[in-house]
């Protein structure tokens, strides 16, 4: 009935997921949602909760309960998110913060939140001008103005220990020519300065000047109760850090959310921590949790037990596949033999993506051949545009032999696999591509063998691969120990494939993994094979700059703050420089450069992209409907993304 690795204790939490975003500034087409239908054969729901049980201190029909992704809050009474990490997904990020701009990856755009328009730079990118939205008020009734922005930038620049303190050192001067305009003068040209204020699961938020100017020590300031620019304000919280409740502001129409999308429907929103996925499942079945991101197995458990529950897709593969993160395998490219691109390619061709997908997610995933996620915008601007080039891309196997590795048929084979497992899969090729991806690399162990042999590798008598120096080839794949994460899935799937190919590969499941990644103490790691791009904007500067050779620490064991693969390429450096000199609003030029950059990553394969992050999102439609499912994508679907506030006006109460 089920499978796929997922996990247990969400202990090692502080899971860092990045997921996706949301609502268009333009009018949103909202279709009425079809009445609940069954997804999986429903079994009787155990004891439907009685009226009084559901209240939980809040009128249930007016309250939305969502799961807090990063787990129990460490400092529940501290809302000062300018210092350290404050479990912002307990509602601060989604309901209280308004950034200047917000990424909407599912629709493919940048929303002007507090800003009234995109940033304007001068010719040489040393000055940025931002126009602000008028008529926005803090939750205490004070108007939000350019003074708040100026104050924030000055304060953060001046105060050591605040997040973004270092990043703002490039600011020469900041001032407000009028109440709704901010001008930032930069010491060095920086065409991407505004992205510090662009919310993609976090950014630099604006401080209320009238509160913070009276604070002596910002580092120890608790900021409790916090002021809000979003449509909700803090209602109450658990001093033990398990839940945080928010209430709709009376003046919700004086917030960007209200102005852009109208009145959010739930009066209360409560974020709750479930330490064990099993209890989140039970909560959803008992209608005590409306939105949760689980694992594939937990998702199935909810769908089986709760006929009112639905996933992002109503049928297999259920999961959210528009997430702006690419998962896969990153090589430590300073460590032999992974410093050899042909070895990296051999390991790619040794993977049978169908069997890989079966082991990782029982086929419920979107394979991605490029080191950038398959969000709708990138499918259109990168995957489709690059397809002819990908089909022609050729590897030199030596001895005059060549090989074209791209395989546009792979998604259809994956669909076949899903059918063989008894899942209902669309027949339409276009639908299949949108579900399972556009293509991947061929499964060609013989070609992989040729590439290895070309580089001096040999096979031992037992069929196992030997390094060029004749010793057995052994290596490990590093992952974090949370079985619910795709790092874990990728690790065990890769280990299975490479063992089959004849290499002694072991998984290194390690809670210290982020430190090991940082210090280059790994062979292959399943942390993101490329740094995540924006998803809602075509600019890949953010991804590419992490491969900038200027940052590469060549000594393994010393921390490296760029992409963990420590890969760099002079051609990529040129593209990074060219992107930096290109205006953020010049999208055609940015796409051209993006394509050139992606071609280099295909040739070099510094990491193997496997599939776009998929989120096992489950909604209970017992109290709230019109969720942004795959058939009705009006906004990004996650409750832990900042755009959650832009989704709330579209939800419909069922009146139960």
């Amino acid at each position, binding site marked *: 009935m089920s499978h796929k690795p997922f996990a247990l204790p*969400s*202990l090692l*939490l*502080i899971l*860092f*997921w990045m997921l996706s975003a949301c609502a268009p500034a333009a009018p949103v087409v909202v279709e009425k949602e079809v009445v609940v239908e069954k997804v999986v054969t429903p079994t009787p729901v*155990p*004891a439907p*909760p009685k009226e009084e049980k559901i209240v939980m*201190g*809040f009128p249930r029909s007016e309250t939305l309960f969502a799961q807090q992704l990063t787990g129990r809050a*460490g*400092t*529940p009474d*501290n809302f000062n998110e300018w*210092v*350290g*990490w404050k479990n*912002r997904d307990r509602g601060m990020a989604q309901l209280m913060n308004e950034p200047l701009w917000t990424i909407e990856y599912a629709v493919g755009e940048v929303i002007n939140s507090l800003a009234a328009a995109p940033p304007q730079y001068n010719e040489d990118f040393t000055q940025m001008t931002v126009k602000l939205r008028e008529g926005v008020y803090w939750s205490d009734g004070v108007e939000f103005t350019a003074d708040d922005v100026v104050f924030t930038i000055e304060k953060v620049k001046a105060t050591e*220990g605040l*997040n*973004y*303190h*270092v*990043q703002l050192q490039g600011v020469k001067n900041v001032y407000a020519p009028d109440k709704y305009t901010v001008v930032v003068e930069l010491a060095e040209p920086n065409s991407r300065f505004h992205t*510090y204020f662009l919310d*993609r*699961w*976090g*950014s*630099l938020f604006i401080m209320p000047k009238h509160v913070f100017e009276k604070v002596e020590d910002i*580092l*120890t300031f608790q900021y409790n109760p916090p002021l809000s620019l979003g449509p909700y304000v803090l209602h109450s919280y*658990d*001093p*033990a850090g*398990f*839940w945080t*409740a928010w209430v709709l502001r009376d003046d919700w129409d004086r917030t960007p959310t209200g102005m852009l999308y109208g009145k959010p429907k739930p009066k209360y929103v409560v974020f709750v*921590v*479930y*330490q*064990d996925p*099993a*209890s989140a499942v*039970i*909560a959803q079945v*008992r209608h005590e949790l409306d939105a949760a991101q689980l694992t594939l197995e937990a998702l199935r458990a909810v769908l089986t037990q709760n006929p009112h529950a639905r996933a992002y897709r109503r049928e297999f593969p259920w999961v959210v596949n528009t997430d702006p993160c690419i998962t896969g395998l990153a090589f430590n490219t300073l460590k032999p033999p992974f410093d050899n691109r042909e070895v990296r390619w051999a390991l790619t061709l040794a993977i049978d993506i169908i069997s890989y997908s079966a082991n990782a997610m029982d086929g419920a995933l979107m394979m991605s051949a490029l080191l950038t996620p398959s969000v709708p915008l990138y499918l259109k601007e990168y995957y489709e545009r690059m397809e002819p080039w990908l089909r022609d891309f050729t590897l030199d196997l030596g001895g005059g032999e060549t090989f074209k590795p791209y395989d546009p048929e792979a998604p259809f084979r994956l669909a076949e696999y899903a059918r063989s497992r008894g899942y209902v899969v669309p027949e339409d090729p276009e639908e299949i591509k949108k579900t399972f991806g556009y293509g991947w690399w061929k499964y060609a162990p013989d070609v992989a063998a040729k590439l290895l042999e070309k580089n001096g590798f040999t096979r031992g008598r037992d069929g196992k691969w030997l390094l060029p120096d004749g010793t057995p080839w052994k290596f490990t794949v590093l992952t974090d120990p949370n079985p619910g994460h795709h790092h874990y899935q990728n690790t065990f799937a890769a280990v299975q494939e490479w063992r089959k190919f004849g290499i002694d590969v072991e998984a290194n499941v390690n*809670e210290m993994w*982020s*430190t090991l990644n940082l210090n280059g*103490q790994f062979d292959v790691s399943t942390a993101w094979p490329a740094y995540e791009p924006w998803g809602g904007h075509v600019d890949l500067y953010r991804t590419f*700059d*992490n491969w*900038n050779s*200027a*940052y590469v620490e060549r000594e393994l064991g010393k*921390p490296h*703050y*760029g992409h963990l693969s420590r890969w760099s390429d002079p051609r990529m450096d040129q593209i990074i420089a060219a992107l930096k000199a290109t205006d953020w609003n010049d999208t055609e030029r940015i796409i051209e450069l993006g394509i050139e950059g992606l071609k280099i990553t295909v040739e070099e394969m510094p990491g193997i992209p496997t599939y776009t992050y998929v989120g096992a999102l489950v909604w209970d439609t017992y109290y709230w409907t019109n969720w942004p499912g795959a058939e009705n994508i009006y906004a990004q679907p996650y409750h832990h993304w900042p755009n959650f506030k832009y989704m709330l006006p579209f939800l419909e109460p069922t009146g139960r």
Partner: protein
Amino acid sequence: MRFVRRYLIPRLVQYVLVTWLGITVVFVIPRLLPSDPIESMVATLQAQGAYRDPAAVKQMVDTLRDMYGLEAGLLEQYLSFWKRLLSGDFGPSYFSFPTPVIELIGRSFPWTIGLLLTTTVLSWIIGNVTGGLSGYFTGNGMLKIFDGIVMFVRPIPYYVLGLTLVILFAYLLPLFPFGGGYTIGAQIAFTWDFIKDVLRHAFLPALSLSLLGIAVNHQTMRLIIQGVKEEDYIRYAKIAAVKEQTIFSRYAMRNALLPQITGLTLSLGQIFGGALITEIVFSYPGLGFLLYRAVVNSDYNLIMGITTISIVAITTLILIVDLLYPLFDPRIRFR
């Protein structure tokens, strides 16, 4: 006087030394781990997805390292730890900088103490009584059945036991909440309603811990009392026709309980480490998860805060019990 010189002073010296040794070991081990508090924090910040450029992150790490005083050598950190500790301060948490460690501990402490103190003491009492009875009166059918149940309950992995209780009593038969310390949205207050609510939430976690605790105490006690039963003085008492009940309670139990008292002391001390798995299964607030997260993030001050309290509690309890031992067992005289 002889007691003071021959016993009390060496015992006190030992008390101080053992406490010091325990704390020192716990000080050193986390610093051998490859992870480091600053890097953990920065990794978390980066995971927010905020835009950063690598050069800026590097600078940030350097700044923070300086601010947290982690540039200092191990010895220097050790000395400043003791200096701080002796002035009653555990310092700030590194991961939740700058919140003081003592504040983090204080928040979870009441939950852990409430749950674990109750279940530890209760299951010690119940387990020892049932274990004593069934070890002494081996012929009793009821006790035999109880013995059998215990034999099967004890080996169930605790996580599974907890999850089974949740599924049984919070899901199939929704009698109890399946998680949390109290109802979401409830105001913390010393009202009867709130206390009732807390008790309701504590029931399943307490039940799971007690079941296991009773089983362990029962089996240990059963083995001990069987030994005591064969002792000469019990036989003499029987020959002297002392009532069976009197022999059991006055002679057998009393002697058999001695090693169990030391065991109780140790488990009371271990309370301060929290109950990690319980907290996970029941989403229960407490020190266990705090400590676990501190270890994963190398939040040195927080680890030291919790473990120092725990170590001092254990050593002090043992010291007190040792000094009180003659009260329980007249045979023992300080030598």
